């Protein structure tokens, strides 16, 4: 189970129940509040992602059993909500499982891809790419 104790299935259900864009954003903000904050000492340049309008920190660590732990934080709530989704999808999985996550399908199911502006989606894809790279690196 991931750090938020919410399954992918529950996540999709939660978003499916939201009738309007306002509700979907509310859901995202609610999720952001469940994301465990990153330790202060981890909010450093090493984990900082450059080129985002918000400050974003991503920390990917590999457990001895081959599972990955993803923790993340941001100063923006919407981005933090998106990070929470990534944690739900990625945290506690193996490298192989992570490479198989159909991110864009899931975002489509959550209706997040239609909501977010083009630049936000690019940003989101960039975060996914960062995670994939960190996973690949630590797995080799």
């Amino acid at each position: 189970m991931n750090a938020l104790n919410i399954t992918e299935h529950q996540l999709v259900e939660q978003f499916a129940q939201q009738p309007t864009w306002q509700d979907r954003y509310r859901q995202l903000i609610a999720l952001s509040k469940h994301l465990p904050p990153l330790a202060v000492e981890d909010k450093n340049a090493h984990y900082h992602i450059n080129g985002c309008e918000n400050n974003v920190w991503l920390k990917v660590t590999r457990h001895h059993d081959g599972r990955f732990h993803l923790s993340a934080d941001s100063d923006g709530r919407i981005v933090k909500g998106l990070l929470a989704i990534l944690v739900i999808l990625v945290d506690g999985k193996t490298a192989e499982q992570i490479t198989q996550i159909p991110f864009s399908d899931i975002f489509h199911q959550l209706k997040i891809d239609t909501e977010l502006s083009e630049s936000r989606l690019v940003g989101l894809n960039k975060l996914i790419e960062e995670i994939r790279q960190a996973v690949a690196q630590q797995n080799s």
Partner: protein
Amino acid sequence: MMFDAIRFRDDFPALSTGQVYLDSAATALKPQPMITATSDYYRQDTANAYRSLYQQAQRTTQQIETTRQRVAELIHATSPQQIIWTKGATESVNLVAQSYARYTLKAGDEIIVSELEHHSNLIPWLIVAEQTGAKVIKWALNDNHQLDIAGLKQCISDKTQIVAVTQMSNVTGYQPDLAEIVKIVHANKAVIVVDGAQGILHSPIDVASLDIDFYLFSAHKLYGPTGLGALYVKADKLSQLAVWHGGGKMLKTASFSGFEPQLAPEKFEAGTPNIAAIIGFGATLNWLKQWDRLAAEAYTLSLAQQAEQDLQSISGFISYRATTSPILSFNIEHIHHSDMAVLLAEQKVAVRTGELCAQPLMRRLNCSGVIRAAFAPYNNQQDVLRLVNAVHTALDILR
């Protein structure tokens, strides 16, 4: 003359999309006559300028010079020969830095730049300082976020060669007292460079009576096309400017041993100019003449004021707006500006957020970014209402 806001708004086809456009400080919308003139040039009048003798080509040259004349009239330059076409405000500042400052500055000289400036009126000075050994000195804002004369007097000295200041801040909308500033700058035998990128839309300027040495702006912020700007140079400085870009039409004679440059302004306009933009801008300026700009500005101010007043009731609301500013930059405590931006965009309210190309000013204002609603005379009460409601809806989601 009364300002007919409804008729004014009608001239902007972009407003028919239903979006609330509050990003006029980034770029102003375009009136129909400008769009028509630009498309006519491409559809039926295409020709290069200053070159061929057939009718369209001659007319094109004529139109470019007419527009130059209109710019001169707009800012009260004594002669159109003092108006140099550039790509925009940014290129204009770089031209002054590289054609004037680079040849006049010596090691140890100083360039005073105000803390309000857009990066476009800071970085070119840092570059030329690096090239010449001169130093860039900050003219700091006072506690009221204003540029006071005492502050200028503190940093100006006989080492000061250039003072660079904006006509209007793109963040707070503050307008420094240019008349006073110019007096002090000239008393110290320095030159003044005024960035009119924001001011040009809101405040008519008289460069001659203010005795400004260099004044510059971008056409796109004054209902004009992108890719075009102007640089005004005072007559006695014009002869001191060194050649800048080399190429076609900036010279009288050329051979393998050298060239003899044209006189200004052609000397600084190498290559084919942005003809379509100049023609479009000519149409903009012609269209602009029918409006009472002071009345239009008073109307615009009233909108910004009303928006500020209505938002004031939100707890944690912080306004950075200078009194009499058409630009309302703000924050709401504990709300990230980019979260607000996303949710305003969702509601079809176009604002700008972030550092607004003014990182030093952001540091001074103690924030990582702001939300900016920039009003123009084509906005209306409905726009104010939609902005205020959209902010409330966003807060409702975020809080």
